[in-house]
């Protein structure tokens, strides 16, 4: 009985994780044509489940999140409307600014 209860918990955690991931992917797809938008991703289920923490945002590239030093700030909870940490100017426009004019 105990074992099966844990199985239910794992299964529902997996389902919740998949739902959260779907929400993040939907946001990425909706903003595919937004200038300067940076795609977001949540931590893999394997990592969050073993760590027992919530699904933190994970950067696919260094410099994705300017507040990389405090990753706990970036949670998928802000899909529900919690404030996003202030984002830096999009890297694309930075690149354009630094490009010498010909």
């Amino acid at each position, binding site marked *: 009985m105990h074992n099966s209860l844990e199985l239910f918990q794992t299964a529902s955690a997996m*389902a*919740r994780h*998949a*739902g*959260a991931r*779907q*929400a993040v*992917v*939907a*946001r990425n*797809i*909706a*903003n*595919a*044509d*937004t*200038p300067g*938008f940076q795609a977001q991703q949540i931590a893999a289920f394997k990592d969050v489940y073993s760590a027992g923490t919530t699904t933190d945002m994970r950067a696919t590239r260094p410099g994705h999140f300017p507040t990389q030093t405090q990753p706990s700030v970036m949670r*998928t909870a*802000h*899909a*529900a*409307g*919690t*404030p*996003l940490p202030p984002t830096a100017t999009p890297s694309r426009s930075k690149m354009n600014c630094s490009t010498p004019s010909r």
Partner: protein
Amino acid sequence: MTDFSDAMSVATSGMKAQANRLRHVSENIANTDTPGYQRKTVSFQEMVRDGLTTGAVTTGPMRLDPTALTRIYDPANPLADETGHFDGSNVNLLIEIADAREAQRSYEANLKMFDQVRQMSTALMDLLRN
């Protein structure tokens, strides 16, 4: 559950934004031959509500393309000046068609996402009902 409804509203916002873009493209195409018509463009931005980004997308303010209008030589036209030229529109059909196609593809992606979320929540509801 709120993840599902969030995902659905975000996908909906994407479809709305793409539809709005497509409307501007069709306005441009319809006015290709209108003398003096300036092409309309919209850009996308993240939707902000009460100072918070919601993850949804919206179209920004409509802007007019400042590209120079084409000078069309047609002395018989009543609009022609003393050199026989008049201002056409600055619409490039090739660009408009490419823009429309891109809007279509993005719309499809959002629609697919909406359908997927709907299927997921329907499956959950079916499971809970039985």
